[in-house]
Every structure is written in structure tokens, then in C-alpha cells.
């Protein structure tokens, strides 16, 4: 599977990453090689095989929906790049 520099640029945008032109070319080459290696899976007949997304069968574990206050707001906010003491602050949206 070849992957073009345009495709790399598009996927980078979806991933919220900014790549230099040089890096786009480098990744296109490396990812093409990796995807080429991955293409060998096409050799296997997997018709009627149920996909396995996790080794654990228990899909949804239910618990009571109870409010818990395990952490103090000020502690949570300590790791934030910008706050007003009560909320996370981000650049203006509207």
C-alpha cells in the first residue's frame, strides 16, 4: 500500500498535528513501508470471523450512577496550563 504525501498531510490534520514538508515526505515513505508490511493480512481468509476488540468478554460493567467527589477542584486545576481559579481557560471560541 502506497501512501501519498497528500494523504499523510490529510491524516496529520485529522490528528491535530502539523508536519513540515520534509517530514510529510519522510512519513509517506516510512508509512508506505509499514502499510506494505501490514497488507500481508489480506492473504488470510477472515470471512465469518467475529472481530476481537478486547481479550476480556465483559463488555459493559454497570454501577450505580452516584455523584462522588474524590478530588478537590483546586488540585485538578493545578495541572492546567491556564485557569481562572474555577475553570480551565482556552482561547476565545465565539
Amino acid at each position, binding site marked *: 500500500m502506497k501512501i501519498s504525501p497528500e494523504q499523510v498531510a490529510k491524516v496529520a490534520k485529522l490528528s491535530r498535528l502539523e508536519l513540515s514538508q520534509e517530514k510529510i515526505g519522510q512519513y509517506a515513505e*516510512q508509512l508506505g513501508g509499514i502499510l506494505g508490511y501490514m497488507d500481508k493480512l489480506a492473504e488470510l481468509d477472515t470471512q465469518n470471523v467475529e472481530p476481537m476488540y478486547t481479550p476480556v468478554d465483559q463488555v459493559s460493567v454497570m454501577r450505580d450512577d452516584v455523584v462522588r467527589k474524590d478530588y478537590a477542584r483546586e488540585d485538578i486545576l493545578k495541572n492546567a496550563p491556564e485557569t481562572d481559579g474555577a475553570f480551565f481557560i482556552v482561547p476565545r471560541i465565539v
Partner: protein
Amino acid sequence: MPELTQMTLSEVRKALADKTVSAAQVTQAALLRIDATEPKVKALLSVQAEEARALAESLDATGPDPAKPLWGVPLVVKDVLATKGVPTTCGSKILENFRPVYDATAVARLKDAGAILLGKANMDEFAMGSTTENSAYFATKNPWDLDRVPGGSSGGSGATVAAGQCYGALGTDTGGSIRLPASFCGIVGIKPTYGRVSRFGMVAYGSSLDQIGPMTRSVEDAARMLAVIAGHDERDSTSVNVPVPDYVAALSERADLKGLTIGLPAEYWDKGLSPEVAEACAAAVKKAEELGAKTVPVKLNLSQYAIATYYIIAVAEASSNLARFDGVRYGHRTSAPENLLDMYVKSRTEGFGDEVQRRIILGTYVLSSGYYDAYYRKAAQVRRLIRQDFESALKECDVLAGPVCPTTAFKVGQMTSDPLQMYLMDIFTISTNLAGLPGMSLPVGLGRETGMPVGLQLTGRAFDEARMLQMAHVLEKNLPPTGLAKL
């Protein structure tokens, strides 16, 4: 009595319980060992010396507590595990200043058991790598030979244990990240069954593959740590609520290997092994036979598809998991962003290293519309077939045995240029994660050519860690000791 820092966890634990040594003495000896060896080995991203000394003193003030199985034992934790108030960087610049407000469950359980946290171990950024050269801070060196890598991604955990800086460490294993560094550093490393140990507080890489496990200087040590961290946790919905056997007691149930059947997968023994690895692993299997084990050839027909399957699933999960790093609630934020989108993009681009960005992009690609079925869904289907392969093999035997890696630790810088070449180093370890089975690395001697440690990999049935540990314990007692790194 051997020198304090050369003792195993089990030995120092006994010395502490008998009051032959105090927690403060043990902690001080470990900290001095860190001072002496860390400039060469560079295993640790941070050291909590003052906190460790203070805790040791307060433990000594009340005296040994038989209810706490790791009372006074200094340990190290991989920097991907949340430690309350202590930096948790994941080896990434994006989390340079991050201090979690809670402990990972595995960390909390070690602390509750009386352990002393000494420091946080270096790692490949977000556990993506096999050499620990991919840390955003510095590369860790192998204590056996400073020109060689310790393996990865838990290379800091492997090196700190092998260097005698602590008595055990926690690592994490998504595709071999505990077993590979354990093999390269000549120590014991266990990847438990998926669901055996809570992942709460482990920064996720591949959520359906990741497990936390112990890295130690003996099998008994590993059993003691696993006994503390294993078991259901309501805060991880994938942790399984099944009883945890007494791993330490299980070790004394066997003096030989009579009645045990070891499966030897042809695919792991046939091709591409360096002669010294083949020789050391074959000698260990021969010893197992002498001790009464029966060996049978088994087939893992889909082994050749495991790396492709693994890297599709791992990068897909990584691209989703790492979406949370957006510069809003924690982690790096770019200075002077033009708008919200610009802030996301620049913060992530500045914060993530090259390999992390490559895997995010690859993961986003295999999940994207038009490619999802051909890659991600296909890989998930092959994953089921791989598990079935293991299930049939493990019907014919109790444990599978083979090498952890085709070679011993390679030279620094050898694997950094070609990502695909590095992915291929995981060839023998990743299937275990895809199948969710328990696996471990046991040191079985030094390679004749390089003089570096060789690890034998054991893989067991789901939740059957006890039998794997028993076998490893008997082998360890009957093989010539691999010894400790001379630093």
C-alpha cells in the same frame, strides 16, 4: 550477609522483618547506590529521596508489620503510572510538569503493602519503543554493558533493578515492554493475563493490550509483587473479578517439573535466532526435561501475521488514547496560540516526539473512513484467529517456551533509523498481548558471543500465572545463576 543492595527483594524483606536492618538503612543504601550508578545507567527520570527517607523513618518508628508483605522495601515505578504529587511524564515533553492528583491502583497497592517509592523509571515516550532510546529526556543504558540498550519500553525499570538501585520495579507491557528489557537486563519480568492487574492510573497506549507487571531479581520476588498488585478493581472495568491464588505459597508446591508439559512452538525456535540465544534457551529446556518436564512440539501457524496485526491495533488505540493531550486540562500548551484549533495543533506538535507522531498518524489512517475495514477490522479478526491458535496449542501443553527475542541486547543507536526494523524486535512477545495471555522472561544465562543475558519466555493459559511461576522458580533454582551486572 551479602551487600545490602545485592540482596533480592525476598531476602531484604526477611532482613527487615527480623530487624537485622532498618527501613532507613535499606533506603539509604539504595539511594547511595543510585548516586553511584545513575550517572552511568540513567534509569530514572526522578528520585524521591526525601520522601523515601521520611517514610522509612516513620516505618521504623512503628516497627515491622507482618500484615504488610512489602514492609520497608524500596521500589521504583515506571513513569507511565500515576503517582500522587510526584511527576509522571511518560517519557514525554508533553507531560513534563504533570503531577497526578491520585495514585494508580497498582502503585496504591504497593504503598498499602508498606513499600517505599524511590523514583520513577525512564521509558520510551508513551511506551512506544523497544530500546528506551526514544525517551524525550535521555537514553537509558544497559548495566551489563553501557554501550548497549536495556530494551524497552520499560528499560528504566529493567536497568534500575539490574543495577541494584532498588529491589523491584513496575513496568508495563503492551507488546513485550516488560519481557524484552527483563531479557536484555538479565532479570525476571512478568506480563500478567489481561485483566489480572488494574490499569487504573496507567496512562493508556493500547488499552486492549496494556498490562502492568513486576520486574525483579528473582522469581520469588516477582511472585511477591504480583500477589500485591493483582486482583479486581472497580475503577478498571476491564479488570477481571476472579480469585488471585497465593503465588508465593504456590512456589513451594513443586521441587521438580514432573507431570508438566512444555510446548515448543516451531515458529519461535526455527528461524532467525542468534546462535547464542538458541543455545542458552535450548539448554534451559533441556534442564526442564531433566527435571521431569515433557516437551512437545506445537504450532502457532499465524505467528507470521502477529506483528502486522499488533501494530494496526496498537496504533489505532494509541491515536484515540493520545487525543486527550490537547493543552487544555494538563500538559504542554503552546505559547500565544491564534485560536483554539491552533492551540491544539501546536501544543500536540511541540509536545509529542517523532515516533509518537508517526504512530498517531498511522493509527488515524487505519481507523479512517475507507481504510477501517481493510486494516483495523481485519486486524481484529486476525487477532481472534491468533488467540484460537494459542488456545489449541495450550490444550496440548501447560506452558509454552521460547526465546524472548532473537538476539541479546544490541548496541546503542543500532535500531533508531528504521521504524519497521524496530517493530520486528517484538516478534516473539506481541502475540501474548494480542491473545491476552500471561507471559514472562526468565534469565537463563549469558550469551557465549556477547556475554549479555538471555531470557527464556514462558507463556501460560489465561489467569494461570501460578503454574508459569512454579516452572520458572524450579528452573531458576536448577540452572547456573545468571548473576548480577558488574557496574
